[in-house]
């Protein structure tokens, strides 16, 4: 039947966006086919060294997601696969695919890599951007998922060596390309981007001068697993550079090349690469960034910018570089640029070109296959109010394909696209998936501890410093250790299989991994031991990377000794480990959303489409929030009409209960089982039960104290100007706009993101209603990122004057005899200019909602220094809080444009759905346990518990402490304080901790 809906989704593109969308869909009960053209998933993020603004290792945070995707029972990864045709419509698509032959039987290959060690033929390593070689049989990178080798048919001479050598008999030379048809209900396109070809910008010498590299090549150079082992080297002579120049906007903001848009991520990654290059270079490295505008517009980005300048001493030169020449003798490079209207030349050892993003390769064929429209730059066409919808119903988009963007934006959009893709087939949830089953748990209570220790090389992260073979031998000598071995990457998929095998072979009943941080990797290993029939709490981990090899990088001997101490002490603890049970809790399939602006309403509508009831609480007497102050948009969409339609769809939705003029007065409970008191307009309190919370409290406009605001009626904010224009009251002939009012200063160091767009929007509107009006925009950096650059250009073309100012020379606004005078430095003519405008418009920052503090305390979630809500992880968990079941979206997170708020709102709905769609949730097993016989009922624990997880319950006439399992976070404060030692902290018992620290301090005899 053609209109039968299918509970499966096709995700095209295995980069971080495609991965996130797949995981959200799969965790919400849908079957996912994740296809990628290449041999493994991971996308560009897998090639990056570190990520801004936290400097997290890219692979370290991505790898757990790769592995989770590879292991997910509801996800089928199809690599080397292309779309050849599409039929059907939303709810029921037929997708024809062709899978190119790998010449390897995927089910048989275990990724051991012996074939690549013996293959006689070498080829250029594309993953390392040609800076190194690989064999004709290869995997893209060591942590690749799926970890299946592939034969490069172009290079292979067919000698047959791999066939002879492969123990798994996985080689199949006559494997043919295969074709198949997938039946899915909806589709998400996440094909990513193609990096700009720097050769097209020939004046910068890429391809001609050896020491000019692209930013992606530089990421590989910086990477510890890259060609140079993480040391920055010049290609011409292998020397470490002393002076590097970074040239921004290569292939972006370039009208001649036709790429007028801004690639949105390069300013930050350029800065990050400069910072990391300094970190990776033993001598003092001099880094200079040549830029046009430093577009550090994201959350906490300006704080990073300030650190780059002040702490790291990176030099910033505002100039479009004219050209690069080379000294052929030394390979050094000359950067020719203009600063302060003076032509200058500076010599560097190396140049990094921050190359922009282009639409993915074969984008036209992709668009044709899926019947979607592209915009003028051949990215996917979307709109402000439908940021993840393509022009074809049932086909959604996320990541850089819709516009150049950074990782957190891509991840948020991916979850948002997942929400949309689910909602069209919500009725089919769970029809094509099976719950994950583990083998029965082995009873180890009667067994002697038999410990297995797995030591990770982490490429060179650990192995380059700590003597891993020595450590393994040492581990073998420790009491109760019956097995120990080293792995190149203990987190890789093949090692999981190996750990399971070793548990079986050696009858292990305790497993230890000595590697990186449990924060990212412990869940993976716990699952692995569980798959081998062990209770997951019989697993322990010790961090010999972050706390050993990284900090003792230059003392390999001492680091090895420390690693031994760490392993010895964790072995001592592991001996005492006991199995723990994970409590199961029920989920109330209802959502609570705080805030009825565009984000809150969108999240509510999306949750209702998933089939869940929603309570939507808005403090004002009307829905709409910040959006209701907008009268027009940059893209000429009508915000009023869209808002009214959204309000209507909320009010008419019988799954959404709206509370206006109300606030959440109290919230208790935990994921799946929250209880809230909603204080309503009439003073009444209503109690509701819900399984999740979404925080969408928005933000407010800063009321300036600067530039005579409030003292002179001619000084107003952008919002006030917009109101005036919309009401037809605008009549000024001379307008000065001042950017960054209340932002990027000592009090609020970060950028408010949307003011540049607002100023451009209002400037264009002024030019529309009154073309002869002069508009001056005084700015620090014009942050018109992505396609907004087009509007910047349009405004400049229409005569809006953009004049740069620096902090040292801020504009001055003075009141002289009723006239307002603006004085500022004009950097081009190098003179102080004074004008008498009719209006001074201040681009006032968007600042956090003052109620955030109260809400944060009530929900026990953190705020940033600025007062916005702080998500669980800035890069990969943009809409989650660290507290389970609580999510955030929109301007509560940070200032953002409508399309970004909507994408995040959909994302929060998708993330919430991963909980609400499950009837029960499995909780953490490391929690407090009360020995009721010992409990004296003193209530100290109840008082101390920061989560309200302990309450006193009457038993046999006396109060006894009772732990609410789902609320307990396992901090152990109660256990420490208990005067009668009645509280036992699972996995961190006093005996276990004592054994661990004793062994750390004193070497025990083997």
């Amino acid at each position, binding site marked *: 039947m053609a209109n039968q809906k299918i509970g499966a989704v096709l995700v095209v593109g295995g980069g971080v966006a495609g991965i996130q969308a797949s995981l959200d869909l799969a965790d919400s009960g849908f079957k996912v086919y994740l296809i990628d053209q290449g041999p493994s998933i991971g996308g560009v993020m897998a090639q990056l060294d570190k990520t801004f603004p936290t400097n997290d290792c890219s692979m370290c945070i991505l790898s757990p997601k790769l592995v989770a995707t590879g292991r997910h029972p509801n996800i089928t990864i199809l690599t080397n696969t292309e779309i050849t045709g599409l039929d059907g419509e939303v709810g029921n698509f037929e997708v024809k695919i062709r899978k190119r032959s790998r010449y390897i039987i995927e089910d048989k290959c275990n990724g051991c890599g012996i074939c690549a060690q*013996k293959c*006689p*033929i*070498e080829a250029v390593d594309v993953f390392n951007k040609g*800076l*190194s*070689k*690989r064999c004709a049989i290869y995997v893209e990178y060591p942590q690749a998922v799926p970890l299946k080798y592939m034969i490069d048919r172009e290079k292979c*001479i*067919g*000698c*047959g*060596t791999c*066939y002879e050598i492969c123990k798994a008999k996985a080689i199949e*030379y*006559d494997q043919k390309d295969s074709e198949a048809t997938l039946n899915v209900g909806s589709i998400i396109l996440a094909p990513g981007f193609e990096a700009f070809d720097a050769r097209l910008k020939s004046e910068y010498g890429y391809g001609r001068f*050896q020491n000019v590299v692209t930013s992606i090549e530089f990421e590989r150079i910086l990477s510890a697993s890259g*060609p*140079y*082992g993480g*040391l920055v*080297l010049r*290609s*011409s*002579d*292998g*020397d*470490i*550079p*002393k002076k590097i120049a970074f040239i921004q906007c290569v292939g972006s903001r370039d009208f001649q090349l036709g790429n007028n848009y801004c690639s949105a991520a390069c300013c930050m990654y350029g800065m990050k690469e400069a910072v990391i290059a300094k970190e990776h270079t*033993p*001598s003092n490295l001099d880094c200079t960034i040549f830029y046009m505008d430093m577009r550090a517009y994201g959350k906490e980005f300006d704080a990073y910018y300030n650190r780059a300048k002040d702490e790291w001493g990176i030099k910033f030169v505002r100039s479009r570089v004219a050209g690069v020449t080379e000294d052929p003798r030394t390979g050094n490079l000359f950067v020719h640029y203009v600063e302060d209207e003076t032509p200058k030349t500076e010599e560097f050892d190396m140049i990094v070109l921050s190359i922009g993003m282009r639409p993915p390769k074969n984008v036209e064929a992709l668009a044709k296959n899926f019947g979607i429209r592209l915009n003028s730059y051949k990215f996917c066409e979307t709109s402000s109010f439908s940021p993840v919808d393509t022009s074809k119903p049932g086909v959604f988009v996320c990541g850089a394909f819709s516009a150049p963007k950074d990782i957190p934006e891509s991840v948020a959009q991916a979850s948002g696209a997942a929400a949309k893709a689910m909602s069209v087939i919500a009725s089919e949830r769970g029809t094509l998936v099976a719950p994950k089953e583990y083998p029965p748990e082995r009873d180890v209570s009667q067994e002697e501890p038999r410990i297995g220790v797995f030591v990770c090389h982490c490429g060179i992260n650990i192995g380059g410093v700590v003597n891993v073979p020595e450590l393994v031998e040492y581990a073998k000598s420790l009491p109760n250790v019956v097995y120990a071995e080293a792995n190149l990457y203990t987190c890789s998929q093949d090692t999981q299989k190996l750990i399971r095998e070793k548990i079986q072979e050696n009858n292990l009943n305790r497993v230890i991994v000595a590697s990186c941080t449990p924060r990212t990797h412990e869940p993976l290993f716990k699952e692995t031991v569980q798959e081998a029939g062990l209770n997951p709490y019989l697993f322990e981990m010790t961090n010999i990377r972050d706390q050993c090899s990284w900090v003792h990088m230059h003392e390999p001997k001492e680091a090895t000794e420390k690693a031994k101490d760490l392993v010895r002490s964790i072995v001592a603890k592991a001996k005492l480990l006991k199995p723990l049970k994970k409590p199961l809790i029920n989920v109330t399939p209802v959502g609570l959303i705080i805030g009825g602006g565009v984000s809150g309403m969108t999240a509510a509508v999306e949750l209702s489409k998933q089939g869940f009831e929603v309570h939507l609480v808005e403090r004002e007497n009307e829905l709409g929030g910040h959006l209701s102050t907008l009268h027009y948009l940059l893209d000429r969409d009508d915000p009023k009409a869209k808002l009214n339609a959204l309000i209507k769809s909320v009010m008419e939705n019988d799954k959404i209960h709206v509370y206006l003029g109300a606030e959440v007065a109290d919230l208790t409970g935990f994921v799946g089982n929250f209880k809230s008191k909603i204080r309503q307009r009439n003073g009444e309190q209503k109690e509701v039960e819900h399984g999740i919370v979404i925080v969408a409290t928005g933000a407010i406009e800063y009321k300036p104290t600067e530039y005579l605001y409030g003292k002179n009626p001619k000084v107003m904010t952008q919002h006030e100007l917009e109101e005036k224009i919309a009401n037809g009251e605008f009549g000024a002939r001379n307008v000065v706009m001042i950017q960054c009012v209340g932002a990027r200063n000592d009090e609020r160091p970060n950028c408010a993101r949307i003011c540049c767009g607002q100023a451009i929007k209002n400037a264009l509107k002024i030019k529309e209603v009154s073309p002869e009006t002069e508009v001056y925009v005084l700015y620090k950096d014009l942050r018109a990122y992505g396609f907004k650059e087009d509007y910047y250009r349009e405004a400049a073309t229409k005569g809006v004057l953009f004049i740069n100012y620096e902090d040292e020379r801020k504009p001055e606004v003075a009141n002289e005899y009723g006239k307002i005078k603006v004085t500022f430095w004009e950097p081009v003519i190098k003179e102080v200019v004074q004008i008498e405008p009719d209006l001074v418009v201040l681009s006032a920052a968007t600042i956090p909602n003052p109620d955030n503090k109260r809400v944060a305390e009530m929900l026990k979630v953190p705020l940033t220094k600025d007062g916005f809500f702080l998500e669980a992880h800035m890069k990969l968990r943009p809409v989650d809080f660290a507290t389970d079941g609580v999510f955030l979206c929109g301007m509560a997170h940070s200032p953002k444009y409508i399309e970004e708020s909507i994408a995040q709102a959909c994302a929060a709905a998708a993330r919430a759905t991963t909980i609400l769609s499950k009837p029960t949730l499995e909780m953490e097993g490391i929690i407090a346990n009360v020995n009721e016989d010992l409990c004296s009922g003193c209530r100290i624990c109840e008082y101390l518990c920061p989560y309200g997880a302990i309450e006193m319950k009457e038993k046999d006439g006396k109060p006894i402490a009772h732990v609410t399992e789902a609320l307990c976070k396992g901090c152990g404060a109660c256990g420490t304080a208990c005067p009668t030692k009645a509280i036992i902290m699972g996995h961190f018992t006093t005996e276990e901790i004592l054994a661990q620290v004793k062994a750390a301090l004193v070497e025990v005899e083997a």
Partner: protein
Amino acid sequence: MENNEPKIACFMCNFAFCQTEMRIPSNTSIARVNCIGRIDPVLILEMLEKGADAVMLVGCKPPDCHYIEGNSQAEITVKVLKKLMCLAGLEPERLKLLWYSPIDKKSFSSYTKEYTEEMRKLVLSPIKKAVSESPLMINILAAKNVASEFRLRVLLGREKELTESVNVYGEKIPIEEFNSLLEEIVASEFVQQKIHVLTQTKPLSIKTLSEAVGMKPATVLRQIVNMRRRNMMTLDHIEGTTPFYKALEVK
């Protein structure tokens, strides 16, 4: 008194070997093997290293071979060895492959006399004067390492199969294509092995290596990157802005 006669080491197949015809000059010593295809390339380099001025391989002329095609395998060995000898700075004429049968009209001894004559024109083997760390000895050692490399030996062993019959995909590789691939591989293996030998005793910079191998620093860097991938090389220390690399023991 110094003997200025070139010393020639001769490996001879059992069926080219005939007791009665052995009136050979005293400078030539003969080792008998079943088939000339048995002669390992490393062995020949070993002879040259030990001071032989020339090496002669004597076997049955194709298509005759009592072991079916050992002789054509020897042809391949000689082809590659001559390339290696050129790279190492030894005249390729110092290796000769001779097809001979006891029933040939020309006697074996006249062949050896001719070859001795030819060798007299070359100066005596430079190896005799070379000390252990001289460039030539390093080159020979590197060449030996190349000849014992798995990668190269796979190609030597498969050449006939791949160029005369078909490969695993049922395709025949044109001999010209195979030869140019082989040449490329031998050349890059030789540089890598040479760098490896040079850095075994002490860590060296790319600049020093570049002078030692007579190649651009950029080329040396690329080789080192590849050697690090193959676990042949590691970064030892950094002096100023210059990294120093040291060979790893190859397992």
